[in-house]
């Protein structure tokens, strides 16, 4: 068991060492492709459809009235 945990720790250290060598750019790029690329693709499709529907205006309609109770939140 002790040997196994030593092996595991060794691998974790190697992994951390490897991550440490990757620069911020690569990490953020991975993050982008994993998290934001699907969002971007969905938005592009949505914007294409909305443009098709109303190409005479770029106004974005706001249907929800402002709820003053949301003033408690930072979002």
């Amino acid at each position, binding site marked *: 068991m002790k040997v196994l945990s030593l092996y595991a720790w060794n691998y974790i250290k190697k992994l951390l060492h490897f991550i440490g060598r990757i620069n911020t750019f690569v990490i953020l790029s991975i993050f982008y492709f994993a998290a*934001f*690329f699907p969002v971007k693709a969905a938005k592009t499709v949505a914007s294409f459809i909305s443009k098709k529907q109303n190409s005479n205006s770029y*106004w974005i309609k706001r249907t929800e009235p402002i709820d003053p109770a949301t003033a*408690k939140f*930072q979002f």
Partner: protein
Amino acid sequence: MNSPTYILGISCFYHDAAACLIKDGQLVAAAAEERFTRKKHDNNFPSNAIAYCLKEASIEEKDIDAVGFYEKPLLKFERIVEVAANTWPKSYKSFISAIPQWLRKKLWIKENIQKELKNFKGEIYFTEHHVAHAASSYLVSPFKEAAIVTLDGVGEWATTTIGQGTEEKINIREEIHFPHSLGLLYAIITHYLGFKPNSAEYKVMGLAPYGKPVYQKEIENLIELKKDGSFKLNMDILTHDESTSFYDEEKMKKLFGFPPRIGGPLSEAHKNLAASIQTVTEKAVLAICRHAYELTKSKNLCLAGGVALNCVANGKILAETPFENIFIEPAAGDDGGALGVAFYIWTNVLKNKRSFELKHSSWGPQFSDKEIEDFLEKKKIRAIFFQEQ
């Protein structure tokens, strides 16, 4: 007898930090931080302006019932991250340069306010940037109902909004989102003309009458303006969404036929470019106002946001739109956001009636003749005192 309710409004950390204090719905004091620090457009936490407001009302931090901040920091951060993701990897440099400031202070507004106002124990509220602009104009206007137009560089996502005010309520009906922004386009041309963007737009407005709008078509290549006042910027040439530089220099040079001005004298071409951006801005502002009238059918208009500081464009609204009455918040830029959030809290969050009308803009520090005389004497500055006629 109930003790009065004090609300402190704050704007800071982008440009034009300011504070304002209202007592039972009446404005007591309002001032921009730059007036105390002598740093133009100072964006730091407005400690001096707050101290002045408290002194003016003869109260202490513990007497403040609520503090309002003029935008929603997490929504704004969402925009920064999403835009960076959408334009990745071109946005790498601008994202990396913006992140430290966000991590250091802009994400911790509540904590920063609590740290700066140690004895304040009340609630902290946040409004959207353009709601603060809309409130700063409509809620202190003489109108019971009005169309509200806000135009600036950018808040969270919105850069332009059309809303409607009825009694205490503000309803934003339509908006245009970043990166499409009339304020940013004006700032970009300000930069191209060799002036400081987000600061020297007034110089471009002042330069405009010396030129002719011969580059109007070229500017209209940068902004597609629809009949209803909505618009879209040409993001093939403009790059403010993905980089710290505003535009692709080669493409702009090709478009206008001359490079960006870096110092040196102003040529005819520079004057003509100023006239062109002014002409296009006026055209856009008038179209937006006409659309606001169509939406609201109100004869009253309230304006706010940095673009509403363009007094030349404002001057044409009465003559060229169906509006009969206009109210423009004197501090239409981000400093006015402090005023907006304070009045929004009083009327919309705390559900009180409007009872204040902004009739002048002299809400900052004032100095008596004696104080000025003492200062000049202390500094050994020669002066002549002219008696009032």
